[in-house]
Every structure is written in C-alpha cells, then in structure tokens.
C-alpha cells in the first residue's frame, strides 16, 4: 500500500506537516496527494475508531452470515444493494466459502437485531438462510488495540 495511506490508516489526524516530515517531502506535496486520493475515491472519508463499551454502552453488534440464491444477470449485486440500504447495516461483503454475504449490523439490543434479521433480512426474496453471531468483546479494530485493563507493552524498564 502507498506509504501515505498506511500512515493515515494508523492515524488520520496526523497533520500534513508531520506527514511531510515522516515521508521526507513537503507539506504541499502531502496536501496534493491527499486531495488526489480523495478525488479518485481511494480515500472515501475519515472516521473514528471507538471503544463502543465506553462511547455507547447500549450498542450491540452482530455478524450475520447470509446464504442467497444468485439472481439471473446480476448475480449477487442486487441482493447486496438491497441489504446495504438499511441503516442498521454497517457493512456488506460478498464472501467465498460456506455462505455468500457477510453483513455487520448494529442495534440497541439483542432483540432489536433479532427482529431486524427475522423481519427484514430473512424475508428478502432470494435469501435462503441467515446465521446471526453477536459480538461479545472486541480486542482489535482496524489495526488498533481496544484498550484492555493491562498494559500491553510487556517491555520493562530494563537497563544496565
């Protein structure tokens, strides 16, 4: 991956000045490259990585495996598009393997999500079956460790 994108993935709030120093170039060059990435749609937006337990205790996330019947002419695309239109749905991916679509859904509680799956997702034409897995705890998200109680840097202050 491009070195600038790699840095922005680690921390999108690095200033252009910092990025320029890190990549041994000018601020103007960094600004131009970011603009170009945005224009081309490589960078689609900027977001935060939240520790949900702290930010919003009342959110539940579930991974849902969906098996579907591909439609004539458009394969899986139409079904994926239908599913992604729901606000509850955070991500939709087409998968290889035992099922077809992987969907991430967030809701206020287990019941809300269960109802959403039962009433909305399962009833879409072409959906054969669903399997819902609730997230109990997240340890790492987008390469960032979700803070645990214990310090994960095990290096002691050792020196001669």
């Amino acid at each position: 991956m491009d070195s600038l994108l790699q840095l922005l993935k680690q921390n999108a709030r690095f200033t252009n000045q910092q990025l320029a120093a890190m990549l041994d170039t000018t601020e103007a060059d960094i600004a131009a490259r970011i603009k170009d990435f945005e224009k081309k749609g490589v960078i689609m937006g900027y977001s935060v990585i939240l520790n949900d337990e702290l930010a919003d205790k009342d959110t539940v996330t579930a991974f849902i495996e969906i098996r579907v019947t591909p439609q004539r002419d458009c394969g899986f695309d139409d079904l994926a598009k239908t599913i992604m239109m729901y606000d509850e749905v955070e991500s939709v991916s087409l998968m290889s393997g035992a099922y077809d679509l992987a969907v991430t859904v967030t809701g206020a509680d287990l019941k809300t999500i269960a109802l959403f799956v039962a009433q909305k997702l399962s009833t879409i034409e072409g959906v054969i079956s669903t399997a819902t897995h609730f997230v109990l705890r997240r340890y790492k998200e987008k390469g960032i460790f979700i803070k645990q109680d214990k310090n994960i840097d095990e290096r002691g202050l050792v020196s001669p």
Partner: protein
Amino acid sequence: MIDYDKILNKTIKEIKPSGIRKFFDIAQEIDDVISLGVGEPDFPTPWSIRQKAIQTIENKRTIYTANAGLESLRKSISNYTKRHINIEYDPKTEIVVTVGGSEAIDISIRTLVNPGDEVLIVEPCFVCYSPIVSLSGGVPVPIETKMEDNFKLTAEALKAKITDKTKLLILPFPNNPTGAIMTRKDLEKIADVLRDTDIMILSDEIYSELTYGRKHCSIAQIDGMRERTIMINGFSKAFAMTGWRLGYVCAPQPIAKQIVKLHQYAIMCSPTVSQYAGIEALDNCEKEVQKMVNEYNVRRRFLTDSFNRLGLTCFNPEGAFYVFPCIKSTGMKSEEFCEKLLHSKKVAVVPGNAFGESGEGHIRVSYAYSLNHLNEAISRIEEFINELK
C-alpha cells in the same frame, strides 16, 4: 556480625550505579507513565526465528555447544560479515559467539587491558564500558563528542587523548544514545591517527543494521584496521532478539584465542536454542529487518521534526533508534528537565548525562514505539514546553 563493607571488592563498591537505572527507578514509582525510555525493539522477533527455536527444542537440541559457538552459526556469521561489510573472518579461529553484545564487550575488554592501561571511551555512550575497564584495572579516559560535530569522533579529539599508556579505543557507532554514525570518510581520519600505533579498537557495532539513508561502514574495512579491530555485534537490535541473549566477537586469531578462554571459563557456551535461531536470523531474515528499518525511519523523521519544531534542537541522527535533542534552551539541566517532565506530564525520557558528562543538556528519546505512542508523547512534551514559557 559480618561487616560486608569490608569483605566486598573495593573496585565494585566504587562503581557508580547506572544513571539510566536510577531514572527508571523513579519512573516506575509513577502510574500511567508513557515511556520513551526503553532501548529494545517494539517488534516481535520474526516468526521464522521463533519457529526455528521451537523446532530446536522439539529435536532435543538442548545440550552444550562448542565453547566458541556452533560451527554452523559461526559460518553464518562469517558469511554475514562478508555480505554486509565485506570483511572475512575465519569461522574456526576468529569468531566467538557470546551471551549478547554485553558479554562480548566484557570479555574483549578484560582480554586486552592490563592494570594501568588507558582506554579511550567515546562519549556520550552506552553505560557499560567504563565500569568494565575499571574492573579490569584499566583507566577509562573519556573523549567527548559534540553536537556541532554531529557527535562524531574527530581525529583532533582522539589525538588529544592519546598517551603512551593508551591501549584501546572504544568506538561505539551507530551510537547509543546520540544516534550518530561514522561514515567511511570519518573513519579514514581516525584510521590515519591509529595506523602506526599499537592502539587496538573495540568497535561496538550492535546497531549496524539500523542506519537510515546509507549503509553502515565498519572501521575494520579501512586499510590496516582489521588487524587491530575487535568487532562486536549481536542479534538484539537488528533482529529484535533482546531476550535471546546472543551476540558475537570477531577478532584476529591471537586475540580471539584468548577471548574464548575467558568465555569458556565464565559462560561455557551461549544458549544453544538461541544459537540455532540465530542461524535462521542471519541466513533468512534480511527482508524482516528491512521492514523494521523502514518503520524506524518514519518514526525517526517524525521525532526529529517534532523536537526541532518545539525548539529542542535535534541533529539528524542517522543510526540506532534514538534521537538526542538538546534541551539547553529551557535553561534546565538534563536531570531536572527529565524529572519535571516525568512528574508534570508523565513522560519518561532518559537524561543525556547518564551517558557521560558530554551528554549534559540533552535527553535520550527512544523511538522503539508505535507512531501513535510517539505522537501522544510529543503532544505532552509540547504542553510541557509551552507551560515553561
């Protein structure tokens, strides 16, 4: 009741405790400190090296090796030095595998130094040379390097300290704590001073793989220097293998022959599992090392730029994983700066004078930490500096 004070070795008692240790002890008393003090890589040892160690244990290779180390490892070391610095050492007679670079330093100094011999130590530097020289009955003679020389050793500074008692020059580049390196040109000037003398060189090249922008040059590569150079290297820094305790000495045969005697009586042999893993490191892990170097380089530029922007002048360090900014603009001494920073912002860095008097007015900052960790530390240091104004 035994009077322990009477029975203890006098020289040992007189040795000052390490300045880094002293500061870490303070830092450990404080909660939620973010540290920039650690001198070991934050990367894990590359997987293939760990796997080799697991296999070694599974195959029950957990017995002593030859005193000087596995012959196959010594061959790998010989090939590695040939590849990297274009010097050939005979695996049978010129290489000794040690318990980290630390043991290599210890036994090399003790093998050379007679009571009364003067040993030139380029400062600021790693803290162990001087105590070991003193324990051997030698006299440590510091040679100060300066920021205006980019903390390089100059021929003039060297000449000024040479006497007829000078036995050995300790040359620690790439340097901990300054991050300074010596280029071939710099080393040639040093070589010119030493060429017609009997002065030996202990070249501690533990950070040789961690250079940025140009390749490491060993003084042993310069005309006439191989015969007087004891070259020390190890696996801790380049391959992120600190806990494996594996290093080595390369020296002319008459010296290596005596070094191995000391090693065999004190240590017997280096850890066998580590030695097998070391072969994998040298033979197959150049790509992994390069990845780590690239990452260090980004952090290095980030820190150098950040400190310069804060007005803590930081020369461009081209090696190791430390930056050594000057804090004189704050009007504080190194220790005062570090203690205040620690108490008010909970950031731990090491005072420069822990590495010799010439380090006064500087702090050592390690970048063996993630960018986000460094970024957080820099924000706190910025707050600290702003509150001083």
